[in-house]
């Protein structure tokens, strides 16, 4: 029965937090379907540890760590191929928005500019400014040193400022 209860609780967690996890994955990957794959992969990796993690900690943080590290490692394996493919995904995959062409274009440009960052830089940007994590929290999620987070952050911001995909007023 305890196993059934774990399964039920896990399903409840997925139902409640699945969309939020997908949004983080979407910002990381720039592709709706790749984001879903990433969330599924992370959850599948984490489910076997459900009872251990929930007994002593925050399962969502654990899932997020697996999600982000899985993404950066996937990217490393795919070497340079991810950038071109994801750019295409962004430009084809963006639905129209009600808030005007300028806003749409500006966000699309941010999306494309994000894809020009390395996976590590993108992960740092999403964790710091979407997840609102501190430098130390970001370092713990990614399993790297705080110094690495700081250097990746500086490089990411510098790259975004230089990005030709962003207009002057937002750089």
């Amino acid at each position, binding site marked *: 029965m305890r196993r059934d209860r774990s*399964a039920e609780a*896990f*399903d409840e967690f*997925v*139902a409640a937090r*699945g*969309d939020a996890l*997908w*949004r*983080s994955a*979407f*910002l990381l990957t720039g592709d*709706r*379907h790749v*984001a*879903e794959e990433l*969330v*599924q992969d992370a*959850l*599948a*990796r*984490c*489910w*076997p540890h459900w009872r251990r993690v929930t007994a002593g900690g925050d399962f969502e943080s654990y899932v997020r760590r*697996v999600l982000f*590290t*899985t993404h950066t*490692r996937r990217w*490393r*394996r795919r*070497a*340079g*191929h991810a950038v*071109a493919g994801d750019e295409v995904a962004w430009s084809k995959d*963006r*639905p129209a*928005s009600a808030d005007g062409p300028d*806003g749409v274009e*500006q*966000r699309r440009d*941010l*999306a494309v500019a994000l894809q020009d960052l390395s996976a*590590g830089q993108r992960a740092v*940007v*999403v964790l710091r*400014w*979407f997840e*609102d994590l501190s430098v130390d929290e970001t370092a713990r999620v990614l399993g*790297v*040193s705080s110094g*690495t987070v700081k250097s990746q952050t500086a490089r990411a*911001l510098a790259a*975004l*400022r230089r990005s030709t995909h962003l207009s002057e007023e*937002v*750089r």
Partner: protein
Amino acid sequence: MTDETWLRQGLADLAERDAPPAGFGERVTGVRTRGARRRRRRNAWAAAAAVAAVALVVPAGVVVTDRLDRSSNVAGETITGDAVPGDFSCDAPRAVGDATDGALPAGAVALRMCSLAAGPGTEPDATPVALPPDALVSDVEAVLALVDGETVPVGTTPRMCLNDGSRLWSMAVQYADGSVRTIEGDNGFCRDVVVGDTIYVGAGPEVYGAFIAALAEQRAVGTPPADLVASPPACERDPDDPFGPTAVMPATPPLGDLLVEPRLCWQDADRSWHGTPLSADDVAVVDADIAARLSDHEDVDAPFGDECPPWREAAIAGVSRWGEPVWIGGSCATFQWSDGRGGVYSWTPSPDVLERLLQLTSTQVAPR
């Protein structure tokens, strides 16, 4: 508005404007089943570990004869069809049953390396690995024939194996009818191969090595992909991942046959990495020098010369003609690489070639 505020708002807008694909909720709750399957396989390794523990304290022969059957994975069934060998991906759906009885049907037409994951008790995916992008389509059954020997059912017999930090590997087997099955193995730890619910004790290194050797032979007579889009490799190393992605397939000179976009990378005294392209002439000179001065060393701590050039570390890097990252690195003036079968080779450039390489770097590191 600061750029950080703008970034925060932009990211929130981006994330909120899109929604997961239709059916996401149903699919994502289904991952528990996949997780359970993963756990069963992991338990197989734990069980294998326990068996080896017994083997450590009891004479091995006694354990083997008492508990293990000797069998082969070859089954009576032969699958036929007209599937194009190698025309499948690691994501291909697995055949129903997926060799749950430990036996693979005859009629395999291709074998593809699909993952190398950290073993039990080690940090997951600690070092990134570049898998071979091509499938093995020759000598496939010869490789699979090595999945034999002593067997033990998954999860029944306790074993304990030393955790040597090695990786578990997974290969997808394609059949003539287009169906795909999976085998998993390990080159260290218990050194086993798992087929369905059966462990083939100690078969891992032989199967893995045979795959690497057969794929190298296949490449030697084959044609690399014509549509390869190779970007120059990044010379900068991640301090947390200084070795970068490691290719499964060994990268061995001659460099002219091996590399697309060759570069010389080096780390200066301030630990900053730099890179410069190597011309075809540079590569030819280096290849000739390697051919003349190549040596193999068992003792990898000893081969360095007395004098070091100004760089802290250097490497010849690039992308293989098959699309994999190549990093032939070294310290001081000695470069080293592995042949993938345990052999380590080293090359210390002749003074003339070293000078030529240093001239390439001096244009990059000299003060402006």
